[in-house]
């Protein structure tokens, strides 16, 4: 199946009954899939909204009602959703937001790119908040992480972003849908708005006029974020065992890097990879751990350098960090990346 379709199918299997979206390349197949598929699901709701702004606010309403809800877009559309993402975070509403990103800034182009890393991980909206950001690198992972996204969103009452790119959205690979995790304890939603039938009325809001109340709310969110950092960080190691150098890359770039590393290893270059699967929380601990052994890092991103900040924040000087970036929708080949690896490797006399 095609990546975009897989996200849709996984969402529906995870119990997503509500989708609102707006066309934008390269995520259209997802919207289209939901249009067709949700009409077959009992109580399934598909709305093609009049804009990205309307779409995310519809999702907000559905989430208030306790429904698993999703929206998707690409760069420019995600920018338009920022105000409401900030609201969702403040009101502690679960929601899954998919960004099949493209080249930017501005209208840019529709080629795969990773230049929305900052926007996703630093909160492009106003105020102190963080969102869980999942970065799949295969069609299978699109399926698995989409399902996980809904669970995390409910568990922590927070928006979860899936950051893919045009390549993942378009790519076809075989995929297996795991049965949605038996919800150990179903997350009870005793905060949802369903009408005050037989219970006191409820309020969902983000306005906290009294600074002391708002401050307490901010710190409460921070405590939640710390729990998430502690429990939900995901990272993949690849051939680190004997390596003297590690490439750090996520998503599509990591996929290319795998190919590059296999090539490099053919030349006896001892290089491995660290792949953050959650971009926030970022696997800082794991990188710190590895920096006890490996001292040379190459950050490879399909942008001009964004995740590198998180790598440097993780290391705080405990390793040398180099960067290779190809922004604007360029997809370098594994060969090209393996050459960058080799040149770094030999320059640093690691081999």
């Amino acid at each position, binding site marked *: 199946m095609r990546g975009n379709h897989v996200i849709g199918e996984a969402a529906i299997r995870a119990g997503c009954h509500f989708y609102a979206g707006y066309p934008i390349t390269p995520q259209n197949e997802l919207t289209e899939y939901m249009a067709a598929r949700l009409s077959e699901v009992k109580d399934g709701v598909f709305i093609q909204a009049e804009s990205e702004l309307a779409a995310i606010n519809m999702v907000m309403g559905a989430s208030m009602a306790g429904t698993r809800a999703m929206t998707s877009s690409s760069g420019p559309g995600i920018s338009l959703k920022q105000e409401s993402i900030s609201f969702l975070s403040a009101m502690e509403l679960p929601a899954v937001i998919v960004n099949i990103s493209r080249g930017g800034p501005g209208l840019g182009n529709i080629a795969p790119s990773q230049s929305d890393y900052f926007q996703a991980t630093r909160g492009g909206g106003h105020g102190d908040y963080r969102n869980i950001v999942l970065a799949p690198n295969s069609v299978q992972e699109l399926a698995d992480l989409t399902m996980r996204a809904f669970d995390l969103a409910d568990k922590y009452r927070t928006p979860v972003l899936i950051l893919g790119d045009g390549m993942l959205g378009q790519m076809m690979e075989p995929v297996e849908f795991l049965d949605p995790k038996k919800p150990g304890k179903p997350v009870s939603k005793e905060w949802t708005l369903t009408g005050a039938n037989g219970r006191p009325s409820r*309020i969902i809001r983000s306005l906290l006029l009294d600074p002391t109340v708002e401050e307490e709310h901010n710190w409460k969110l921070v405590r939640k974020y710390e729990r998430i950092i502690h429990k939900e960080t995901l990272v993949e190691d690849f051939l680190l065992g004997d390596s003297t150098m590690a490439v750090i890359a996520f998503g599509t770039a990591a996929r290319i890097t795998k190919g590059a590393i296999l090539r490099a290893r053919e030349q006896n270059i001892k290089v491995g990879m660290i792949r953050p699967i959650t971009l926030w929380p970022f696997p800082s601990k794991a990188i710190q751990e590895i920096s006890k052994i490996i001292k040379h890092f190459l950050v490879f991103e399909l942008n001009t350098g964004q995740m590198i900040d998180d790598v440097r924040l993780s290391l705080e000087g405990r390793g040398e960090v180099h960067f290779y970036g190809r922004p604007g929708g360029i997809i370098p080949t594994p060969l090209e990346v393996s050459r960058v690896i080799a040149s770094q490797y030999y320059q640093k006399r690691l081999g």
Partner: protein
Amino acid sequence: MKKVFSRPKSLKNNPFHYCPGCGHSILHRIIGEVIDEMGLQEIAIGVPPAGCAVLAYNYFDIDMGEAPHGRGAAVATGLKRALPNRLVFTYQGDGDIAAIGTAETIHAANRGENITAIFVNNAVYGMTGGQMAPTTLPGQKTTTSPGGRTEVAHGHPMNLSEMLALASGSVYIVRTAVSSTSNILKTKKAVAKAFQVQLSGMGFSLVEVLSPCGTNWKMIPTEACHWIEESMVKCYPLGVIKDITGGRKSAD
């Protein structure tokens, strides 16, 4: 003697924070009365706006969920689609619904979303301190039209309700006021009818309420009500703008 008038039970026991003579207070009570009388407290869900009525949830004793400024119709759409057998209404100021929320409102009406919008038109941005709104009258002084609104510099007062009446998904659109006892009673009837339209699944309904804002109009409350009846209604005539509940199409 029997108590014949007191606080509706779907309002909480909090005194309003609104200014003296504010239309929001009157309208809150009216809505509360209608919810009581129609027995809707347990299924009603309100969507308050950014605006002076942002704290409406402190007064209504029903479930309420805040929308970002202007996005009431979209949030209500999400709620109602997820819970088709609840009563979902937005409560929005003129800045909220007729400026920043124009697109969301028109498209909700156009899709025929089965929700009700209560549109409180006080011809001004109340909460932010009295700036010009799309609904501000020609000549009206506001903090962003200090010399009075002129059509050349600031444009024309906008008749959102009439535009919404053109959307084929809208069913009942009416304009009332809370400027006098009789207008208050008419407003109550209109709200009740709009809720009824929604309960029968007919589509989009909206009640526009001309509402005094003495504070920003720089008038005492009674003057403000007179100004509604003398000036505002000329620009925004009261009455039914569209009602196709009888199957009859009577668009503008």
